[in-house]
């Protein structure tokens, strides 16, 4: 930013300039007539300063970038361009004389300056600039006009236009960016804005093209490109330098903190470590990669590995001896006898395809114990390629099947070391039942194929495609999820015992040492205890502490709300906690100041840290029940057990309030299920909180699983079906008048009393008339209500008559004493009477029906006779059938007279007299249309009629 060295020089030059261009100045003076131009005339002199500088060969320094040579070059280029193409985009550059070269050049460059300065002026000195620009433009217009009018004048105009255009290059305030300070003759300070003229020039140049289409330039590579290259190189250098420096600093820092990892030798490794410490989780970073690094229980590890090794024969075709040997070696101090026994069991059973009996290993245990890690490490250890399916994956049955089959039947062909797959299904307890069924199918399928194999080769081959030949390891938190019920017996179940806290703490200490977290073994042990030996939680806590940049102390661990998992508690736990006031044993985790802080926070932490205060209890129960989520079952359990809970309530206020809350629960639940407003769901847990507040006692209550709901529902359906059975056959008159509920609640209880009148224990024949009437009334009533008595054999072997359908059960509450029953004999009598009455009725019905049917026929016949012609077409089919009967009757008439004689050829002659006597009657019959002769067909082969004729007859 060197200021102009001397400002005298320009002035000298200015003097020369004025001398040189006196005639042009004259023209300018003439132009002062143009309105509005005068005010700016004062600035002309100042402006001359500006464009004088480029003119001077030595003064090109104005541009901060010292590229005078290039500048001049471009100026020349510019000039030539202008010369060759007189009509440039600048309206005023109508220059035709070669002598004006320099002038034109400066004008050109100045114009660009002006334009830029105009822009800048707008920003920096807004008040003055609009005026000036307007004037300049105005002037340009006029000069343009004059140029058109007189060509000779053009030159002067151009030169005279120059100072006017450059006037805004002088700024009274320091502009933004580079600028040069100048003091004029008045002692006023002006600011000149610096521009990269070269850039503009080159930009302008690129606009010019030669007729051939080649860009107008002197060098083979355009100057701008060259400059860009230089700039790029410089930037690259700077970036490299800065990177080097930061690396240096990081290294220095690491060394200072003592975290330099000895194991990671290379600098690149160190970098990775640094990055992962910032981005990744320590849990991932310190995940065990070897079998020996595993933290989990040795016995579990070994069992799983043994199981996996059992697949070797099926998968790798190896003999088992190979793997048995190391097993023997290792058999030493670690293995407890249980694991050993398990192992033996495992070794014992194999099936036809040399696979272990249990095709699936099921790892279960609370989160954070390293189940997934174990599965991965062991599978890799045994030479498998681990394919994991997680809860985040799609778990519909089809996808599940597809993926299982893909994992178990395919094999990676790419890669240097293709290994067989081992499928690890994580969090299988979250999978739907359908998916589990698919898995079961696959497991069982092989069994079938193993059996069906010998039967037919073709069949076997087809099935072999589906046979499971790869180990599957399933991981779950809760083993007793309903969907896993069928999988359990088929799989090798491995319970994860809690990790040994000393081992865990040791590992944590190592991690802390590596990551330069200052802590001690006691603290870490406390952390382990607090997180319930959750490895993941411990490591995360450690990382969290590290990220805060503090050290982990014992008090920190105790006050921290870490390790509290959002774990689902069982229903019994929930009920128990609702009905029991928590003891204060957990208080030891609290620091005195934490209590105060905790109340302010009033969240989960409070409930966790101080569950004995009412607020804490409130939050705790809320959290617990909403975490469990099974509101329906929870509420049922409360309803079933709350009266058994140990609470003191003299006036039953708590009970009534509890009932109110139950009512509230029902209401909310009803609305939720009715119109699906699940937003109300959030209010449900408060019912449980209220129950806890009302009924919680200090001792653990005896809880029973809620079964009354189910029982009641069962009973209800039973009763409903009974009622339906009875009402189905009831007389329609009654059925139409009685609603279902009214029938059950109002009618039936009374009815059962009504149908039990007192009878004398005598034979029904000896009943008095009144008794007989009573009896018949009873029978009618019972039939009307579809009731009867039925003999049944009780379990004790006694026979008894019971109502059928047995509505007594439907109407009587279970703790009510049974009603007085009729005697066995009376019931028997009634049952018999009912039976007889029913029969009688059905008979009567049948009779009436039979009687009824002919009468319409007769009627039709009568009417048919009246209107024969019309009724003819409308004769029903059954009439047409009936008619032949009459004919047969008519035929039977002669049959009555028939004596059963066999008519032979001889007989006619003999009975000639008799027949002749009857001929009159027979003719009468034949005249009616039916001959007396009828034809009797002889079945079978017809014998020709052969008859012996004595010769006497012929003679």
């Amino acid at each position, binding site marked *: 930013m060197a200021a102009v060295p001397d400002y005298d020089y320009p002035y000298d030059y200015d003097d020369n300039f004025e001398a040189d261009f006196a005639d042009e100045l004259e023209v300018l003076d003439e132009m002062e007539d143009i309105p509005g131009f005068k005010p700016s005339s004062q600035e002309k002199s100042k402006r001359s300063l500006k464009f004088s500088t480029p003119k001077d060969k030595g003064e090109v320094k104005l541009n901060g970038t010292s590229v005078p040579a290039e500048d001049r070059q471009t100026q020349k280029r510019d000039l030539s361009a202008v010369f060759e193409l007189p009509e440039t985009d600048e309206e005023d550059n109508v220059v035709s004389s070669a002598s004006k070269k320099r002038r034109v050049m400066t004008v050109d460059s100045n114009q660009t300056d002006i334009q830029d300065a105009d822009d800048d002026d707008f920003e920096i000195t807004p008040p003055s600039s609009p005026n000036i620009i307007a004037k300049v433009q105005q002037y340009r217009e006029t000069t343009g006009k004059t140029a058109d009018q007189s060509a000779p004048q053009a030159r002067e105009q151009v030169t005279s236009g120059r100072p006017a255009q450059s006037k805004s290059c002088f700024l009274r305030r320091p502009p933004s960016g580079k600028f040069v300070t100048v003091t004029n003759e008045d002692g006023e300070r002006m600011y000149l804005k610096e521009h990269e003229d070269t850039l503009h020039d080159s930009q302008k140049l690129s606009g010019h093209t030669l007729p051939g289409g080649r860009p107008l330039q002197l060098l083979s590579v355009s100057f701008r490109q060259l400059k860009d290259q230089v700039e790029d190189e410089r930037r690259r250098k700077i970036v490299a330098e800065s990177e080097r420096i930061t690396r240096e600093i990081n290294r220095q820092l690491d060394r200072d903190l003592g975290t330099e990892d000895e194991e990671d030798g290379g600098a690149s490794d160190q970098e990775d470590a640094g990055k992962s410490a910032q981005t990744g989780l320590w849990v991932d970073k310190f995940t065990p990669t070897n079998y020996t690094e595993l933290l989990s229980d040795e016995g579990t590890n070994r069992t799983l590995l043994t199981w996996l090794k059992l697949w070797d024969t099926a998968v790798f075709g190896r003999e088992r001896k190979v793997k048995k040997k190391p097993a023997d070696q290792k058999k030493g101090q670690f293995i407890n006898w249980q694991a050993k026994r398990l192992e033996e069991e495992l070794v014992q059973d194999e099936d036809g395809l040399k696979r272990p009996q249990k095709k699936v290993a099921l790892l279960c245990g609370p989160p954070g114990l390293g189940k997934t890690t174990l599965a991965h490490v062991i599978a890799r250890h045994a030479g498998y390629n681990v394919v994991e399916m997680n809860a985040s994956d799609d778990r519909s049955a089809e996808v599940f099947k597809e993926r299982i089959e893909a994992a178990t039947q395919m094999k990676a062909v790419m890669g240097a070391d293709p290994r067989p797959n081992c499928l690890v299904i994580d969090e299988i307890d979250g999978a739907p039942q359908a998916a589990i069924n698919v898995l079961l199918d696959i497991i069982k399928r092989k069994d079938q194929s193993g059996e069906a194999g010998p039967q037919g080769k073709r069949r076997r081959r087809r099935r072999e495609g589906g046979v499971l030949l790869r180990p599957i390891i399933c991981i779950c938190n809760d083993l007793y999820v309903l969907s896993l019920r069928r999988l359990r017996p088929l799989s090798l179940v491995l319970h994860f015992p809690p990790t040994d806290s000393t081992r865990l703490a040791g590992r944590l200490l190592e991690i802390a040492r590596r990551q330069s977290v200052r802590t001690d073994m006691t603290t870490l042990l406390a952390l382990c205890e607090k997180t319930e030996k959750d490895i993941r939680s411990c490591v995360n806590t450690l990382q969290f502490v590290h990220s805060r940049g503090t050290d982990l102390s014992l008090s920190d661990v105790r006050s921290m709300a870490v390790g509290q998992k959002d774990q689902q508690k069982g229903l019994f736990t929930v009920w128990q906690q609702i009905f029991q006031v928590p003891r204060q044993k957990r208080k030891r985790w609290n620091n005195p100041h934490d209590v105060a802080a905790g109340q302010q926070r009033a969240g989960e932490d409070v409930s966790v840290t101080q569950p004995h205060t009412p607020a804490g209890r409130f939050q705790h129960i809320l959290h617990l029940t909403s975490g469990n989520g099974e509101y329906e079952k929870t509420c049922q359990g409360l309803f079933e057990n709350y009266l058994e809970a140990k609470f003191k309530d003299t006036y039953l206020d708590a009970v009534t309030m509890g009932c109110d809350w139950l009512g509230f629960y029902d209401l909310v639940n009803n609305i939720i299920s009715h119109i699906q407003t699940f937003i109300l769901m959030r209010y449900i847990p408060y019912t449980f909180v209220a129950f806890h507040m009302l009924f919680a006692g200090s001792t653990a209550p005896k809880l029973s699983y809620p079964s009354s709901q189910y029982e009641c529902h069962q009973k209800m359906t039973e009763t409903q079906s009974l009622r339906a059975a009875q009402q189905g056959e009831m007389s329609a008159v009654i059925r139409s008048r009685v609603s279902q509920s009214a029938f059950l609640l109002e009618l039936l209880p009374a009815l059962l009393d009504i149908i039990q009148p007192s009878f004398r224990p005598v034979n029904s024949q000896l009943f008095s008339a009144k008794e007989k009437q009573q009896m018949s009334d009873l029978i009618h009533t019972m039939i009307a209500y579809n009731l009867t008595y039925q003999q049944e054999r009780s379990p004790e072997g006694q026979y008894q008559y019971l109502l059928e359908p047995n509505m007594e059960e439907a109407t009587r509450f279970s703790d009510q004493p049974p009603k007085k029953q009729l005697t066995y004999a009376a019931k028997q009598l009634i049952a018999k009477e009912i039976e007889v009455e029913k029969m009688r009725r059905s008979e009567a019905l049948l009779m009436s029906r039979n009687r009824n049917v002919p009468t319409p026929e007769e009627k039709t016949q009568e009417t048919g006779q009246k209107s024969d012609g019309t009724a003819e077409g409308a004769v029903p089919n059954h009439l047409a059938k009936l*008619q032949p009967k009459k004919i047969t009757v008519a035929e039977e008439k002669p049959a009555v007279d028939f004596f059963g004689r066999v008519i032979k050829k001889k007989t006619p002659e003999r*009975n000639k007299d008799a027949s002749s006597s009857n001929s009159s009657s027979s003719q009468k019959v034949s005249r009616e*249309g*039916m*001959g007396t*002769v*009828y034809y009797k067909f002889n079945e079978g082969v017809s014998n020709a009629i052969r008859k012996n004729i004595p010769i006497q007859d012929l003679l």
Partner: protein
Amino acid sequence: MVQFAIRMPQTEGGCPEWTMVELQGVLETRDSSGLPGNRLGDLHFTKGGQPILLIGHHVLHGKVVELEKPFAVLVKEKEKEKKDDSTDSMDTGESADTVTCSDYLVKAVIRNKLVFKNRPRPIINLTHKKGH
């Protein structure tokens, strides 16, 4: 040996030709009147020449069969005993021996017969409809 004299009737146009009806079955009467004098039934021929016999409420479909050997229907004439010796085809030697000699007149010749072998079909409905 007995000799029969069979004579051809002295009618113009030769002897008449009859047709035999053969039934696989028995004709019976409902009353004891017997067959003689009673109307047996109706015999129809279809356009194709198939005979249809209606007996009572039975329909019999038969066919026309040509006899291998034609039959002759002879009528014995006792009155003209020994009046004229047979001049015909039979052996005459026998007739000479017998004292009482019958005379036979050819009533007709049978060349075809109508055979009704099939099971008769009832015609109840038809008759009923007719009757109704």
